[in-house]
């Protein structure tokens, strides 16, 4: 029998073909999104990403993705501003400070945050968390600082701020667990050296451990950003879902819309092919953004853990 048809070769080739499924998924996704968004890009060109109007009425169609791109960027930005310090605090506490008996249970609870389905975050956000934000943050702030443009609008609880804070909670498990790995991979000799010249525990963490793990933590932050950018259901349920120029996130207390929530809300109801194409165009931009963010993050995290760690894999 021909050497090529031995069991081993067949098995290897079969496995290799199956392993290519990932590339097939990627190519099919890229192809559908690109071909699907051709009509809207032909009609409006790159102006599609700069326009603010969204009108599917036949004969007066005009589609612009800018408000939703801004909505995604602003909510993800808020998520990073709030979520990253919390996550780093958690990681530092778990690696450097917590008593041994508490480490595993706390790490486990934080990981459970990642297990809660996003639609349940949305449900909780819509019926519970919204009122915390409205009553304890938005109404007091609006009363005293309402004249500032970023606090303008009616404090209703379903807006950019609530969406950003929910996203912050949702990225904590990602950022915290990777930061934990990175901090844990900092060699002990670094800590010992720092203690030996008389630094306090906090100084050791602040000036040696965190700066040693800086690029890895940065990678973790970018990965968290990727999560926040792609998150759909929780945001859809609390952001208020406005359309057109009203969706430009000019104030924390105004309803808005992100790219993913726009698609989740409108894609199904769209009937005309140009309108569907507009939603797919928004999807294409979301895909590109998420690809860039994730590739950057993976390069950073794996390089850091490989080169500096030694302890991790």
């Amino acid at each position: 029998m021909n050497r090529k048809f031995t069991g081993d070769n067949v098995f290897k080739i079969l496995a290799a073909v199956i392993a290519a499924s990932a590339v097939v998924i990627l190519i099919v996704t890229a192809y559908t999104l690109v071909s699907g968004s051709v009509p809207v890009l032909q009609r409006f060109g790159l102006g599609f990403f700069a326009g603010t109007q969204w009108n599917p009425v036949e004969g007066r169609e005009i589609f612009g993705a800018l408000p939703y791109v801004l909505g995604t960027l602003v909510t993800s930005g808020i998520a990073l501003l709030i979520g990253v310090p919390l996550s780093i605090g958690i990681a530092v506490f778990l690696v450097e400070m917590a008593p041994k008996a508490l480490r595993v249970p706390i790490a486990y609870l934080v990981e459970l945050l990642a297990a809660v389905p996003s639609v349940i975050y949305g449900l909780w956000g819509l019926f519970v968390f919204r009122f915390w934000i409205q009553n304890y943050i938005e109404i007091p702030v609006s009363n005293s600082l309402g004249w500032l443009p970023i606090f303008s609008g009616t404090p209703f609880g379903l807006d950019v701020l609530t969406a950003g804070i929910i996203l912050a909670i949702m990225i904590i498990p990602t950022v915290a667990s990777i930061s934990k790995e990175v901090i844990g991979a900092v060699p002990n000799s670094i800590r010992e050296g720092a203690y030996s010249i008389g630094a306090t525990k906090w100084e050791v963490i602040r000036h040696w451990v965190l700066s040693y793990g800086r690029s890895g933590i940065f990678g973790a932050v970018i990965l968290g950003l990727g999560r926040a950018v792609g998150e759909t259901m929780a945001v859809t349920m609390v952001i208020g879902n406005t359309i057109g120029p009203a969706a430009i996130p000019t104030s924390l207390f105004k309803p808005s819309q992100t790219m993913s929530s726009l698609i989740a809300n409108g894609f199904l109801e769209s009937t005309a092919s140009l309108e569907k194409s507009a939603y797919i165009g928004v999807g294409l931009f979301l895909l590109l953004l998420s690809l860039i963010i994730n590739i950057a993050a993976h390069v950073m995290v794996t390089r850091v853990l490989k080169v500096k760690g030694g302890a991790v894999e």
Partner: protein
Amino acid sequence: MINNYAFRKFKNRLFFVLCLACVVIAIVPLLSILYEVIARGAPQLSWEFLTQGPGTIGVSAGGIGPAIQGSLILIGLTSLIGIPVGILSGVYLAEFGNNRYASAMRTVNDVLTEFPSIIVGITAFSVVVLTMGSFSAIAGAVALSFILIPVVARTTEESLKLVPNSVREASLALGAHKWRTTLSVVLPAAKSGLVTGTLLAVARIAGETAPLIMTVLGNTYFFQGFGQPMDALPLRIWRNALQPYPELQAQGWGAALVLILIVLALNIGVRLASRGRFRK
């Protein structure tokens, strides 16, 4: 000098408290979510609620039977498509993965793992729903397996790598072929890791909502065929939450309790079963 030392010690204390506060702040939402879902969902639970279809507003309460059935069918179908493909991909990456092709596949899998799930929905809509001409259970399963495959592939690879090489060598030394070694020796040795990783991945897709919106669509009937629209728990929660009727919102909380019980049971069960064996 003394003052400076006291200040540094104070700062040390302060940051300990701040880091502890970070942990507390992160855990409060988790506890609140669990509390609210149980407190608002538990009164809904009854045999009727779990088995009946949705009722008419103001006439009969009805239940979320179709949603539970739909979710189970989706999970089953997705596992049927996704798990074999994912595991074989992982086997290739772990056992034959010492080349540039495999490291490219590894990167693609990593990137796919972080894909926005709504994008997967658009893809499945364009590829399956448009070709078949209707929203369907199959379209939903295809969308979910796009999410499942890369996760299973990577966890399979990780757990196969934990199997010591001496085990492979022993099998090869006995004269077994590589494929035989992989299937009969390496995979069974990595069994608990495989089960853990796969169940966690299934728990993740059980709660996915976004890709279902444009694939299975959701309706109020029990299963009508794989080519027909179908209900699912996450969809039911979303739809009910946006209804203006308190009865329906309450049913949404009931559905959330059922969903979170499924997801948490998978998570907690798996971690208890594999405690101490794996770092993650």
